[in-house]
């Protein structure tokens, strides 16, 4: 019995002494910090994705609390509701941004872009692209080794084994921009997110001349400028043999889509625009795009 009591007392004393030491050490080395940082951090999504440019959510929280003007700070994962709540809490003007979504600008599927060689190196787009052109003759297209997939903290990108291309799950995408940085070919762009994930964009970034592009890939933009002529909003530019649709100007009128001879202009979530004069040819082309 004595042993038991002695043990209990000893352990108790050790516990108290340790607690006291911990308490005083914690007091001595206490770091004075604005308590609002903790609150703001809790209001952020906590994905620590780094999309805001800070290493983690706490970095952004600190910056939000410390900076007077927070218009340049934004968490795309939380979006406007989250930023609005934080701004209200801090009594600052809320930064606003249009919701965005990552867009893969390459349509060079396996059947459109023939493989000319086989890559055996490490499965990494960065390594393959620093070595050579890739498994196809197109030096600009998606390599399909999934650096973007690895970079995505939200499981929103995958490589489709059938097409060999990256695909974004728009519902999961938070537009953090990690994939944009990870892609060595600069294929991924953050574009305006329309309701129901509708989109129209040029799914090609090849700056090669038309003939060269055509030889490498049947789905590439050849810079023919046909789309440029039909756009009523001045949203399309053609530079270095490559068309680009400015997503801030585009109104999803769909006129350009039917003009594209290679189907490089991709349309998502929209019914094809039916032209009255030549409906058949149009339908065939749209089909081509959807494939």
């Amino acid at each position, binding site marked *: 019995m004595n042993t038991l009591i002695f043990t209990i007392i000893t352990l108790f004393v050790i516990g108290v002494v340790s607690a006291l030491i911990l308490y005083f050490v914690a007091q001595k080395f206490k770091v004075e910090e604005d308590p609002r940082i903790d609150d703001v951090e809790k209001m952020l999504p906590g994905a620590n994705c780094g999309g805001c440019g800070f290493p983690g959510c706490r970095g952004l929280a600190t910056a939000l609390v410390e900076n007077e003007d927070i218009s340049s700070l934004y968490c795309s994962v939380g979006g406007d509701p989250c930023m609005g709540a934080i701004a209200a809490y801090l009594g600052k003007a809320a930064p606003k941004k249009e919701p965005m979504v990552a867009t893969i600008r390459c349509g060079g599927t396996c059947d459109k872009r023939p493989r000319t*060689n086989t890559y055996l*190196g*490490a499965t990494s787009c960065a390594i393959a692209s620093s070595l050579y*052109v890739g498994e196809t003759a197109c*030096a600009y297209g998606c390599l399909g080794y999934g650096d973007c997939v690895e970079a995505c903290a939200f499981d929103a990108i995958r490589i489709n084994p059938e097409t060999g291309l990256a695909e974004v799950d728009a519902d999961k995408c938070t537009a953090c921009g990690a994939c944009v940085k990870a892609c060595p070919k600069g294929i991924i762009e953050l574009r305006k997110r329309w309701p129901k994930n509708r989109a129209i964009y040029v799914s090609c970034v090849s700056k*090669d001349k038309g003939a060269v592009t055509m030889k490498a890939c049947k789905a590439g933009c050849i810079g023919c400028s046909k789309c440029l002529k039909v756009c009523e909003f001045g949203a399309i530019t053609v530079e270095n043999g490559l068309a680009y649709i400015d997503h801030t100007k585009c109104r999803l009128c769909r006129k350009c889509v039917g003009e594209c001879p290679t189907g490089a202009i991709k349309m998502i979530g929209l019914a094809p625009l039916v032209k009255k004069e030549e409906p058949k040819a149009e339908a065939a082309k749209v089909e081509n795009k959807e494939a």
Partner: protein
Amino acid sequence: MKTFPIGGVHPSDNKQWSKGSAIEVMELPDVVSIPLAQHIGAPATAVVAKGDKVVTGQLIAEAAGFMSANIHAPISGTVTAVDMQPNGQGLRQMMITIKREGDEWAESIDRSTELVTECNLSSKEIIERIKAAGIVGMGGATFPTHVKLSIPEGKKAELLIINGVECEPYLTSDYRTMLERGQMLIVGTRILMRAIGVERAVIGVEANKPDAVKHLRSIVGDDKSIGVMMLKTQYPQGGEKQLIAAVMNREVPAPPALPIDVGAVVCNASTAVAVYEAVQKNKPLIERVVTVTGKSVKEPKNLLTRFGTPVSALVEKCGGLPEGDVRVLNGGPMMGRALCNVAMPVMKGCSGITIISGKEALRGEESACIKCAKCVEACPMGLEPYLLSKQARKRAWDAMESNDITSCIECGCCQFTCPANIPLLDYVRLGKQTVMGIIRARNAKK
């Protein structure tokens, strides 16, 4: 026998297939494409345009700045295009295309075969001629030779080392050059010694080429200023830093230190021959010996080839590509670059075309790292490849920099030796490129 102090591997040298064939002159190509970037540094600037007539040896592209090199027409004919063409890696780069008409040479070039040993030019004049001839390191690194020979203020060269090691398996172009063009090599060596103002030169040759050592020693004779040193056969003996360590027992410190910081200047054996031709014969660099070899190559050869000749023509001459899986390499199997386009023109740094076929061309399946430390043992730079590759996968660039990634010479010993078939160098190289980029950006800011 001397060798470098740490690391190294012993790949089977496989030189037997091509070492016995004497240098053959490759037929003149009908059309050549000459890339403007054949060297480290700024690409040369074209000085000819479409439609211009050129003669062999005529300047067609001029060095763009100090760290660049001239390029000369390897054949005579008409320039048909100056445009972007796919290179061996399928990437487009600026090339001058010339269609051949006859074989007309620039008049200033002395085409006689007579050996000219006498050279009384000053150091400056020699370097000027080398620069004019567009000579770059022909071992594969393609560093402009005139830059290497221009000793920076405050530094002093003590020893010239001629790199006749050819540690890269399969290749025999330097070996054949030493055997068949030894006289020129020795004269070239003397010229190089004069250019950098040293009293002594050492020609380093690996022990697997005893006949080359014997031959060079017989040419050197009683001349005490040139030594021919036989080195232990071990890869990567021909790495600049490894060779200096083997010959001089001095280690070049980590970058940005250069060989000249320990008093050494290293030149490749074929480069020394090119220097002889440039200085004594006024002949610019328009051709080189290219080994075409491989287990499945029908007739492996050493071909004296004009630049711009497509690799496919060389391969055809040696019996064509084998069926099935092939890896066609510009260079040897340890450091060469795989081609996806055999229309690639032969360039200044192309010492050989190695063809690996069948099962050998595939990579083994990767398995888990068992921490056997073979890569650490094999690394000739004393790095930890297993750690660096892990950090590169995690994109921990700062950690890689503090683990001295910039010292990596990309020799491939780590990946060669890895029992788990891990693509160590793939990742280490990615890390090195990224870290170098970060360092450059940081320096640019300062």
